[in-house]
């Protein structure tokens, strides 16, 4: 298992957001997290990346307990990429500097090598001409693709994607989804929180439905999205269909 969450509990004050959640993700596997807004998808991803501290349970990365307080969180985060809904590019840096910051400062790579690698990636995703631009000169879809590249140049073991298309105009969603589909083709292990049920169906090996702080139901996309066992999953999907997002 690349990622293994066991009985994870996370509270904010009196609100219990994750309540004994368990989820495993195997090598090269792509797991789609679905669930109502506020069901804890972002919180789970932040806990896995150690941006938030869990209140109970264990999270393991390649078998190592990363929630042990003796583990250095910086070294764990170096192995996990996280891409945010709101891109969170650094506005005072060019696209190229955004991408090379971690390789140079964290992984101590030579600046020229890091720049070459960044340019290769930008070329691949069709943004080579934007290398010297500042983020505010890019469209949302372009910014999000840069954010994904920024996470990928660190060669993470695991890539976490938090509703990476939710802030995008509909016509820009496709370019980001294509990029994620390509990553799956290369065997990247991914957990993606998403509202795009159609995309989850296409790209995910497994869909996990979060409800009341737990994974209520999980399985192949066709089963969970097409013929769910749990009544609450059915309710959720019915609401999504009503909203015209399936």
């Amino acid at each position, binding site marked *: 298992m690349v990622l293994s969450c066991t009985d994870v509990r996370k509270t904010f004050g009196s609100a219990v957001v994750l309540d004994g959640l368990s989820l495993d993700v195997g090598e090269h596997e792509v797991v789609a997290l679905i669930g109502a807004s506020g069901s804890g998808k972002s919180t789970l991803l932040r806990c896995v990346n150690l941006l938030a501290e869990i209140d109970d349970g264990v999270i393991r990365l390649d078998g190592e307990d990363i929630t042990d307080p003796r583990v250095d969180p910086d070294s764990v*985060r170096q192995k996990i990429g996280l891409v945010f809904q709101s891109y969170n590019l650094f506005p005072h840096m060019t696209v190229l500097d955004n991408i090379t910051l971690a390789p140079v400062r964290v992984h101590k790579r030579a600046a020229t090598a890091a720049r070459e690698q960044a340019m290769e990636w930008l070329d691949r995703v069709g943004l080579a001409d934007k290398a010297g631009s500042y983020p505010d000169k890019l469209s949302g879809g372009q910014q999000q693709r840069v954010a994904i590249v920024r996470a990928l140049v660190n060669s993470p073991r695991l890539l976490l994607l938090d509703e990476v298309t939710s802030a995008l105009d509909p016509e820009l969603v496709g370019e980001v989804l294509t990029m994620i589909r390509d990553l799956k083709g290369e065997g990247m292990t991914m957990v993606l929180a998403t509202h795009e049920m159609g995309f989850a169906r296409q790209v995910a090996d497994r869909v996990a439905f979060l409800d009341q702080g737990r994974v209520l139901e999980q399985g192949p996309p066709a089963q969970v999205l097409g013929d769910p066992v749990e009544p609450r999953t059915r309710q959720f999907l019915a609401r999504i269909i009503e909203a015209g997002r399936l």
Partner: protein
Amino acid sequence: MTTPLHTVSAVQQDRIAFRRRSAVRSVLLAAFSTAVVGTLLGVLVTGAPGWDRVRQSFFDPRIAVDWLPEILQGLWLNVRMLVFCALAALALGLLIAVLRTLRGPVFFPVRALATLYTYSFRGLPLIIVIYLMAFGIPGLRLQGTPSVTVLGGAAIVITYGAYLAEVFRAGIESVHPSQVAAARSLGLSYRQSMRFVVLPQAVRRVAPPLLNDTVALQKDVGLISLAGPIDAIRAAQIGVAQTANFTPYVVAGVLFVLLALPLIGITDWVTLRAARRQAGGE
């Protein structure tokens, strides 16, 4: 975008002509009102009953020329103090601001001291700090006590450091937490996130108020004359005492304004640029 072949429509030509007429009218109006106000002020001051005496005791050209060299020599001290104090106060302010952002119980004493410092020195008048430092510390009769000039400079640095720390802190707090989250998620340590992500954005945002405080500092550097060193103001004071005429003060004042002009200009330029960037342009 207009193509080269685009012919401006009659409506648009009308608009352009109207805007041009309005622009000419406002320039004329501004010139006229400036002339009126200037003339009125001139008549009011030079026509005042005491004008001749004021001119003799404040604007005596001979005394101005006589004392200019001494005052300029004093000003050189102010310039050196300004550069040193401004840099030191900026560094101190940045350090204190960063210390105040540290979280966790281990840093409680550091945080508490930094907070106490900014609270007390923003409330304490600079003159009192200068007196305490420049006369109090030598009073201890310790070995190697620095000169009064250095102590006076230290008083300015300590006082302005407290103001600048608050400006830096406001800048740091204005950077959205998601920026730190993004930096940490890439594996950057807290220090690296501060250095490469938070501080560059924070400093850019508060550059106008920082420069503004530096202009205020450059003026207050003159207060060290109270402690004794012969700066421009002290030199002027000696001149006033010897000639029984206030002209040396006016000379010093004019020199201070001239000294401040470049910095004020830079401040305005930076502020304008920041405002434009805020508005969405570049």
